[in-house]
């Protein structure tokens, strides 16, 4: 089977040459080991730089809104789920997007690898099928990719694009036998005090850089509640009260919308486990309203409809 990167390039070139799209959003080689970077290709000759590997971790759906041109987008399973959410929320028109779907084996969490190396710097990383060869000043280590995937990849049930206009390569086998909500259940089983402690431990690391919000394809409010000064909903400091409110309200605002792509987690420079809240809310929405965001274009989002039979036991 031809190389995925080559197939993406060929597809992109064809789309641009045939003027079926004006722009391709994909990935190119980054400047650091285990790092790819979003790129925007408008001329077919530039399509040569497009690549695909296990460090294409960003959710490119984040770049789709407010575009006038027709866009081709390289999208993993989770990215296509975000695109579906954006289409449902009328932020993107289906016909404006050409989805180059890429089945995904999971993306590498370089911070997990860095933690394993305990301070030894990776100078070179090569992906060879299921392994990554890491080279540093005076070491070479070979690690198995699947041991160092992002948390959201470990629990992902949508490795294959949900919608696409072209699929690159063959579909991959979906994760089997994993309990997507295993960690959430452990969290739920704890006492309220323990849960609060674990939540505050996480958000106390927050530096209010908003990388989580800005990386999220669905955080697109014209004015985010944290930025509003009239009225001011929240203080601007990194005190626990302010950071807690920020993370709680952001998480609630993704209820029934979050597709658990993990973009927030990946963007956070401080390693905050942001999914702790969003995944819990995702589970609640699934249990209460039988809805999972971004898995098809038809289901009506729970916040966009109501039903007299909706559960309301939580209203006391």
């Amino acid at each position: 089977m031809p190389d995925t990167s080559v197939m993406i390039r060929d597809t992109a070139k064809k789309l641009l040459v045939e003027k079926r799209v004006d722009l391709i959003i994909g990935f190119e080689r980054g400047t650091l080991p285990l790092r790819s970077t979003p790129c925007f290709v408008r001329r077919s000759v530039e399509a040569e730089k497009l690549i695909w590997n296990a460090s294409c971790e960003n959710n490119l759906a984040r770049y789709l809104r407010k575009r006038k041109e027709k866009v081709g987008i390289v999208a993993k399973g989770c990215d296509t789920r975000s695109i579906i959410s954006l289409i449902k929320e009328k932020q993107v028109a289906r016909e404006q997007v050409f989805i180059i779907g890429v089945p995904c084996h999971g993306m590498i969490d370089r911070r997990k690898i860095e933690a394993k190396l305990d301070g030894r710097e990776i100078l070179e990383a090569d992906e060879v099928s299921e392994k990554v060869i890491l080279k540093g000043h005076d070491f070479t280590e070979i690690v198995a990719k699947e041991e160092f995937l992002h948390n959201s990849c470990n629990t992902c049930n949508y490795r294959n694009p949900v919608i696409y206009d072209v699929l690159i390569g063959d579909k991959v086998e979906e994760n089997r036998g994993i309990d997507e909500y295993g960690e959430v259940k452990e969290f739920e089983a704890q006492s309220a005090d323990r849960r609060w402690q674990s939540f505050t431990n996480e958000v106390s690391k927050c530096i209010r850089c908003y990388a989580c919000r800005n990386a999220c394809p669905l955080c697109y409010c014209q004015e985010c509640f944290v930025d509003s000064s009239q009225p001011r909903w929240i203080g601007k400091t990194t005190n626990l009260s302010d950071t807690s409110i920020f993370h709680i309200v952001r998480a609630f605002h993704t209820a029934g919308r979050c597709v658990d792509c993990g973009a927030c987690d990946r963007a956070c420079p401080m390693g905050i486990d942001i999914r702790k809240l969003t995944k819990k809310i995702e589970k609640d929405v699934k249990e209460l309203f039988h809805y999972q965001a971004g898995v098809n274009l038809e289901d009506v989002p729970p916040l966009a409809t109501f039903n007299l039979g909706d559960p309301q036991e939580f209203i006391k």
Partner: protein
Amino acid sequence: MKEMKIAKNELVSFLDSLISEYKVFAPVKRDGFVVFQEIYSGSEALLVYANSKKPPKEILFPQSEVLFTYRLGGEGLGIEEPTFKDKQMVIFGIRPCDAKSLVILDDIFNSQVYKDVYYIAKREKTLVIAIGCNRPSSTCFCTSLGGGPFSPDGSDLLLVDIDHEYVVQAVTEKGKQFLKKHSEFKKVEEHSLSLMRSVIETAGVLIKSKVETGEIKKKLDVMFDDPFWDWLHEKCLDCAVCTYLCPTCHCFDITDEALDQRGERVRIWDSCAFPMFTLEASGVNPRPTSKERTRQRIMHKFKYFVDNHDMAACVGCGRCIKECPVNLDIRTVLNSILNR
């Protein structure tokens, strides 16, 4: 420059003795990464590390800092200002790039035109003890900005790790006095000095990442309207990772944290990446999109700051390179500017 030495196995007890007299900040490992924190025992200090996740600038310029508190009562408005009664401080184990960032911050907060009492009160009480970098990271490009893995700028003392001991260079008069006062510092032999020279030389060679920054300002002088900015920002998320983790970024906002009739006026970090940063009361924003904001970050660091302070507001620490969620690498940006 006067050199002394201190044995590595004496360092912890030396730090312990400092803690009784000074508020000592040192790199420690927390939540899996390195940060500068006040230490209460010498053994907490991390001696082998690349660099801290957050720059130590926050010791002198905290992310949120109370400027004063106020209360509206029966007798009118009462204002309480900070007393600045903190102990003398030592920042131990800072890297030379971050020490150099203090020179830049000094020029902002303690200049001819502006004296920031909050910064100065802490800065004047601070002794800076840097540890040079025997093994710089691949993202370090300090030598491109006039620094180096053993550059003394901004430090009072600079430690050079020569395996079993540190050679200690007194950089400032304050540093010299400190060395005299503490008997842990011993006379250094020529052998150690020659080891020191070789460590410094080797480290310099290890900095492989270079950008010709000398020409950048000239290019930027005429680039405000360049189409370059139209695409540079395209992948930027407009978050504040690069600015908040930058040791030289110093923009701030002022806000009131009030409840009923009392409150605090707080200074907090702000970032040119945020849409609110230049939003005016009229509703007009002179930097309405990511394009203008990305341009501002580069222009401020490599043009406006050079115009005003005769140096770039970048020390080449590489934090923004390592932590940018979309790998928007400042070295690539600078090289692209050079190629315009």
